[in-house]
């Protein structure tokens, strides 16, 4: 244990000159971490029926601009909605909308 620790300290000492350099290119960087997106919200309603045969059109009908009380998508340019947003628990008030 003691030996390990002194070995670690030795390594740290050896690595010190590199530290300033390494700090800049830390992987991942603080900026990357703060920019990155986590779990996207699930759909609280059933998937809407396709609009003109298109799923993206169906989703964006409300979410592009935030119509009908739907939250506006922060990234309407991303068109494959269901790649990230899967169906979650269906809230009571949404039960009538859409179809399963």
């Amino acid at each position, binding site marked *: 244990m003691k030996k390990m620790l002194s070995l*670690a300290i030795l390594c*740290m000492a050896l690595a010190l000159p590199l*530290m300033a350099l390494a700090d800049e290119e830390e992987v*991942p960087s603080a900026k*990357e971490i703060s920019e990155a*997106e986590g779990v996207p919200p699930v759909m609280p309603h059933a998937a809407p029926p396709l609009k003109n045969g298109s799923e993206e059109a169906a989703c964006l009908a409300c979410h592009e601009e935030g119509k009908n009380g739907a939250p506006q998508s922060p990234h309407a340019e*991303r*068109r494959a909605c*269901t790649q990230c947003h899967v169906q979650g628990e269906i809230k009571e008030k949404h039960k009538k909308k859409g179809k399963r």
Partner: protein
Amino acid sequence: MALSRRDFLKASAAAAALAAATGGRLGATDVHAAEGGIRWGKAPCRFCGTGCGVLVGVKDGRIVATKGDPAAPVNKGLNCIKGYFLSKVLYGKDRLTKPLIRKGNKMVEASWDEAMDLIASKFRESIAKHGPDSVAMFGSGQWTVFEGYAAAKLFKAGIGTNNIEPNARFCMASAVTGFMTTFNSDEPMGCYDDLDLGDTYFLWGANMAECHPVLFSRLIDNRLKNPKVKIIDFGTRFTRTSQMADKYIRFNPQTDLALLNAIAHIIVRDRLYDENFIRKHVVFKKGKTNIGYGLEDKFKFADDPKPMTFDEYREFLKPYTPEYVSKLSGVPAKTIEEVARLYADKSRKVNSLWTMGFNQHVRGTWVNNLVYNVHLLTGKICKPGENPMSLTGQPSACGTAREVGTFTHRLPADMVVMNEEHRKKAAEIWGVPAEKIPAKPTYHATEMFRALDRGDIKVLWVQVTNPFQSAPNLSRYRKGARKGGDRFIIVSDIYPTRSTELADVVLPSASWVEKEGFFGNAERRGQQWFKMVEPPGEARNDLWQTMELARRLGHGNLFPYKYVEKEMFEEYRKFTLGQGKDLAPYEAYTKARGLRWPVVNGKETLWRYTEGYDPYVKAGEGVKFYKNKPNDYKAVIWARPYEPAAEAPDRQYPFWLCTGRVLEQWHTGTMTGRVPELKRAYGGAVCEIHPEDAKRLKVKHGDKVRVTSRRGSIVLTADLRGRGKAEKGNVFVAFFDENKMINELCIDAYCPISGEPDYKKCAVKLEKA
């Protein structure tokens, strides 16, 4: 200890130095404190072959969050839903934490020592009594490079058997034989940049929107920016991909062979080809025909390639007129003409993308050859934005199974056991006599399970995969596994599965960031990650498990490393240098968000065989297929005919059955099935039926139907309006559901050249249940 040490670690340089000094066992993660006390590291996603970068957040020794890595060139911050839920896949309630040994019908907890002693004694006994070919390893395209390398080295150079196969034989083998027969080197010339740079995309039997979601969104993104972009989806089922494509072209199963020949027919007939490219870079060949389906045990096939002239090839294409192929495929002749013209249009940058529809095919090698034919005829290959691109299903099918070469016939870096020079080179790097590596391949995956059933293989170790749910004609192989006698099965996994239930010993494994790892994705990108959390209970790395068996069998000298991962990688790297498969030093991968090989002088290669991009191509050469020495550095256009499927619908079994994946569940669902959100979104397998077929059968949406083939029968819920829509006369069932194992119905016919089974085509009947 681990934690206090982690607190020291501020920079990756220091982390790596420390890891080297301590044998790399503990916490060499790129960590630093961020808000909320969460420490972040980078890793590739655990799931599909796309290989998205994720940021992994760790707090108090647990993964608490994952995010799409904005610095990762593959996904630029985006993940699909599986990637976003990575933080939960390791924390299912029933995680395996202790070795288990079968005592009668019960699995009893044991120590690692007991379990490994028992395994070693079974290996020793079997080898002494029945020879080294009586023991086998079945691994995976989810093996890290280290795990696959250690297993291949132990089996080929230690035990002295070629009895090692990956589950990649079930999914990528036809892509490999396609690459090898056409270019004499595995893996694509292009890369994902082609998804952004091209304007015409043909998808063949690939539901990218669900199976390679992030790559598909790159395509969609490209189309949004460039109105010229066209996505054309060739399929036998209307999927989410079809719905988002510009055009969906439905064809009858198996007729992709004829369609590609018809496209070539038109290109040749109307002289739409690139004559200059053909003269410089192409030779023509034909092989055997009527090559069989591998349905009999011990089926053997060897092709007999013969050169041919362009004129002979032209003759070969003659029968594939649009009219004839239209009858066969169900695609209008006019559409075939249009498609051929799109492929040949000089103002278009054309790409073809495919996955399992081509690979899981009794003529999988042929259909891979045929798509290359079209690109070689038109010269639309090896150029930024225009390439054929074979997508992969597993995170390291390329990096481990294919590049390390964990197949019975392969050695690292495109080498094969049949070649004496190759054996010599491998033996030299491995420090064993060349005679140690057997010159004859033994069993490919399906034959391996047949050998187990017959009793020719006695001891089988399964790592990081679930063959007793994923093999075709499953009932035979499940029964075979429990026939008794000298048979002894070991399964390493992180959860109880349909394979662990058949095992004599179950070993609890570490997964993903519970160990240091390295994966290689579909665009030749190698990606490294450090260990970030401890595995639960007594679970241990598969790498350690393999080396532990080696030690107990007296082959410990094969693994003389201190910092195992790094030193092993540097040893493996020797195979790749100078071969056009060059990997970078290990250190480089600890910082980069992956590098695409060949990496020469620190520079990765985006387009292989191409001057200005590939350092192996000299100035003035333009394009050079420099790996294809036997063919004068040219690529091969193959005359491969249409031949029917192994089993087609008939009176008694009137429907085609196709199997595959869905977005939310991955492979056999052992990981994604433990994430409540994913389970809720897509919980169980259903049977997609065309509404007209359903009506005739008096089946409504949500009714139960019995699906039966000559090999098995299950009851499923009918789905007439799901996200995928079956064509008339076809049904589709996903294979992830461990309670509805559709693979019991699948036929174990395979491509005679690749050995890969056809999971996409067999005949079934339907009854209202």
